[in-house]
């Protein structure tokens, strides 16, 4: 689907050059990632302001926690189950450790320190408990997705300070809520039918990640969580490139061999990545291939040689399965476009983008109608790219499908995966577009063409969109609309508060905390003024929000799957999958 990263396989003519360029770009992205995810500006000052705060906050929270037990009920201490106690103890321990780390890192490079301070606030959030953590997290998580510009500003001084303070304030407010209430509430907020899909919450910080996890992987995890790296192919490429760095940095421990140990080392990275966002099918396939390659290495090969082999393997995998495959697909799909066509596409698929751009470059005259959906609005960047390239673009949201499809002559769709029963597993809403194309009242059916690399084929089968799916954070649905950012002027005000607050922080931690709490309260009220009526949805009983990521399009809606191995009917998916995995 979309690739908002620079990892988007660039259609460079020299296929061999492509992987290297992508390598450098992602390397740059990964290198740039830690600053964007942590705080870039005036790190030292902030550190000082933040450092005392986690301490005071965790103390507050601890006090709140201990104060909570008498507050919750007269016999609430007895009500706490051993599991709850254990959880609390663990959270406190994590907080302490994070604080220690923050202190230890204070003299070190600004990047990790920023990260550590973030972890500090996060851990306090965690034991601050209940909705506090989630609202704070929602606040800091909601925005970065929208673009890199907001990303940096949000993660700049004001954002992180107010976020942390918000966590603290909310923690103080809500600590009385207790942990049981939280559990009950989250249960209540899970849509029953999708109960099996609510695993643990997506990781919000890099806190608590194992020490084995490579920093580049840490960064990638957060980028994937924030949809900075989004789209099946982009995630796959990014993962492979990051793993290449991991392998480069890897040294075989004493007493074991690379083929034996590297797999377990990688699986730490994989576990971390999957806690940030469930792995895509393509990622899974790529990882499987990589592991196969690792295990095929003779244990007696020298380490340097083995690493070179693996690097080569990753490069050629990306080249063959994605970069060149995309070029082949774009080439053959572009042939399907004729002059005068009206192409309807849904959301933002990178391969469809490539196809359309190629067809445009070939001088074909056609119109593109992009249908987009909440909450990711992936089609917007596609629309921008196509419009910049000079295509005639029409844009509407999912409510306008039946209008957009009226004029359509072809539908091009991207894929997250193709299942073995020929169904298309793609961004939620794809099925509606395909269905509309097939069931146009009184008209000729519009051909539906899916562009999909074979690396996205899977041997899994799916009948409906419920058994297999991915649940995203429901708070994404209530994130403020872009329009509200215009009115959200108090943000700079909060930014002006924060330096003052930092100065105070130098004086006394308590005053700083109070000021921060005030600032947070201010920003909270402002947020409530402009925000939608759903802001408090977690508090209202029986109300559930569902934000699923994918849906399954029946095979009969798909006329053709364009792959690098040719154009196939959807029924050919399992055969191609077998062929490509047996090779």
């Amino acid at each position, binding site marked *: 689907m979309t690739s908002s990263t620079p990892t988007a396989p660039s259609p460079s003519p020299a296929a061999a050059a492509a992987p290297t360029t992508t390598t450098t770009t992602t390397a740059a992205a990964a290198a740039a990632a830690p600053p964007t995810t942590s705080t870039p500006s005036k790190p030292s000052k902030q550190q000082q302001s933040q450092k005392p705060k986690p301490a005071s906050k965790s103390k507050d929270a601890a006090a709140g926690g201990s104060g909570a037990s008498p507050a919750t009920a007269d016999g609430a201490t007895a009500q706490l189950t051993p599991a709850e106690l254990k959880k609390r103890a663990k959270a406190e321990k994590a907080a302490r450790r994070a604080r220690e780390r923050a202190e230890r890192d204070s003299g070190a490079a600004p990047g990790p320190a920023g990260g550590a301070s973030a972890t500090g606030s996060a851990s306090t959030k965690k034991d601050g408990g209940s909705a506090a953590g989630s609202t704070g997290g929602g606040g800091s998580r909601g925005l970065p997705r929208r673009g890199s510009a907001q990303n940096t500003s949000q993660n700049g001084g004001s954002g992180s300070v107010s976020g942390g303070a918000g966590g603290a304030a909310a923690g103080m407010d809500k600590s009385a809520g207790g942990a049981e209430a939280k559990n009950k509430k989250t249960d209540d907020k899970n*849509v*029953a*039918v999708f109960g099996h899909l609510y695993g643990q919450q997506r990781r919000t910080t890099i806190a608590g990640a194992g020490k084995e996890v490579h920093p580049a992987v840490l960064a990638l995890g957060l980028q994937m969580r924030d949809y900075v790296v989004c789209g099946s192919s982009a995630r796959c490429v990014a993962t492979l490139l990051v793993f290449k760095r991991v392998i480069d940095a890897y040294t075989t421990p004493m007493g074991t061999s690379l083929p034996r140990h590297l797999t377990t080392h990688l699986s730490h990275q994989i576990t971390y990545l999957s806690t940030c966002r469930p792995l895509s099918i393509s990622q899974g396939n790529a990882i499987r291939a990589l592991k196969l390659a690792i295990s095929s290495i003779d244990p007696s090969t020298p380490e340097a040689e083995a690493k070179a082999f693996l690097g080569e393997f990753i490069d050629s995998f990306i080249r063959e399965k994605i970069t060149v495959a995309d070029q082949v697909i774009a080439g053959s799909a572009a042939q399907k476009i004729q002059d005068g066509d009206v192409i309807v596409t849904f959301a933002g698929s990178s391969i469809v983008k490539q196809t359309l751009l190629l067809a445009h470059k070939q001088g074909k005259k056609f119109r593109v109608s992009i249908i987009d*959906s*909440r*909450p990711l609005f992936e089609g*917007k960047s596609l*629309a*921008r790219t196509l*419009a*910049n390239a000079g295509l*005639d*673009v*029409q*844009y*509407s*949201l*999912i*409510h*306008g*499908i*039946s*209008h*957009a499809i009226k004029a359509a002559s072809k539908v091009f769709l991207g894929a997250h995966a193709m299942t073995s029963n020929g169904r298309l597993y793609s*961004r*939620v*809403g794809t*099925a*509606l577009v395909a*269905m*509309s194309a097939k*069931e146009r*009242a009184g008209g000729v059916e519009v051909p539906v063409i899916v562009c999909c690399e074979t690396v996205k084929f899977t041997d899994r089968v799916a009948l*409906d*969109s*419920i058994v297999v*799916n991915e649940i995203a954070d429901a708070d994404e*649905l*209530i994130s403020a609309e*872009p*329009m509200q*950012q*215009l009115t959200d002027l108090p943000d700079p005000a909060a930014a002006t508060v924060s330096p003052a607050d930092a100065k105070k922080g130098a004086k006394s931690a308590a005053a700083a905390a109070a000021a921060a709490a005030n600032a947070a309260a201010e920003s909270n009220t402002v947020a409530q003024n402009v925000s*939608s*009526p*759903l802001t*408090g*949805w977690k508090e*209202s*009983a*029986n*109300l*559930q*929000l*569902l*934000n*699923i990521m*994918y*849906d*399954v399009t029946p095979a009969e809606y798909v006329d053709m799957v364009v792959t690098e191995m040719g154009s196939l009917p959807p029924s050919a998916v399992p055969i191609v999958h077998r062929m490509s995995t047996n090779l």
Partner: protein
Amino acid sequence: MPSTSGPLTPGLASFLKTLKTNPIDTSIDNLISLLKRRQIRHSRSCATATAYLLRSVISASRTNDANKLIERVQYVGRRLMAAQPREMVVGNIVRRVLGLIRDEAEDDREGDFNLSEAGSESQPQTPRGLDDPTDALSARHEGSDRGASRNPLPALTAAPISMFSLLSHPEPENSLPGTPVSASPSGRWLGFGHGPSKDIRAEVLDGIGEIIDELGQVDDQIAAYALDHIHSNEIILTHTSSTTVQKFLLKAAAKRKFTVIHAESYPNNHEATHATVSGANPHDDELLSTESFQKPLIALGITVILIPDSAVFALMSRVNKVILGTHSVLANGGLVAAAGTRVIARAAKVHQTPVVVVSGVYKLSPVYPFDFDSLIEYGDASKVISYEDGDLVDQIDVQNPLYDYVPAELIDLYITNLGGHAPSYLYRIVSDHYRKEDISV
């Protein structure tokens, strides 16, 4: 009616308020501009405004002739409909008022024949009697009786007239049989120029009062059928913040437990939907004030799942029934509803899920659609891409359709205030409610 204090934004409430004080022509122009500027936009608000306006028009018109009344209403109606041709309810209400006037005029004429000629021969009645049997007559009398007893209620301008009609009504009935003065057919209109046509006006006003009452009660009447259609533990999918649907579901929720999946209808109605779902007060003063105090479904223990529109297909396999509100219903059984409805109805059809449309009869329009595109209105494109992305808006064509045409074959059942109907039966209700000569006003 709603009396909101404080400064009024132009809308239904302000219109109704000024209707009493402004001269009638000002009110007409006022409503026309409100319709044109889309400051009145919900179906029911449009219908209510039209009905009130026509009541004032009729009570303000000094003419006593039924034909003149018809002309006047037609003139006003044409202007209103031209102001906003896609608000079909305006035309519906105009047609119903015209029908009322015609009915009253014909009643009167028949009454004349009956009274003056003592039923000697009934030739003039036969064409009429064919398509409108006596039950219509009796209903009319019943209506007028009820109207007479309620007459003091609309105490503005109608009061003196209705008082007069109270007194004058029995008078010709009692005195006429004895007087052979008006036996000549030519003298009939001259002779009864005053008495009966005064009656016409009063009765038309009563009839409009009934239409207004109907507009007020229609949601509750529809909701009364709720228990016939919703069973326990059902999963119901709905769309937009339609109050008719909400009341329908609320009524059922009082007795039964079920689950509602609510698609948010993103760019045009999502805020109202969110407010409906969460029970927050909508800041939309076009909704009548009583509705904003309505409890949300979640307060009755109904689980409400809010989903983005894109997830409809994914969830449809779990849905037992789709209940939709609508903007207007066409005579062929198709409907014009909020954008996104069609794709939901399609998805339901694909999954063999029944689609139920709840709608008041006042939304039922005698229009047969031929050019579907002309029914569709396009809205503010900045709701799709805000003007912050100005560079993007410049380059691409952003579309924000407000309505969808949903063909009749996607609908399984209509529930109106008269009961449940198959889409194929709607033409019959159309012919019950509108007279042929009014279909093109």
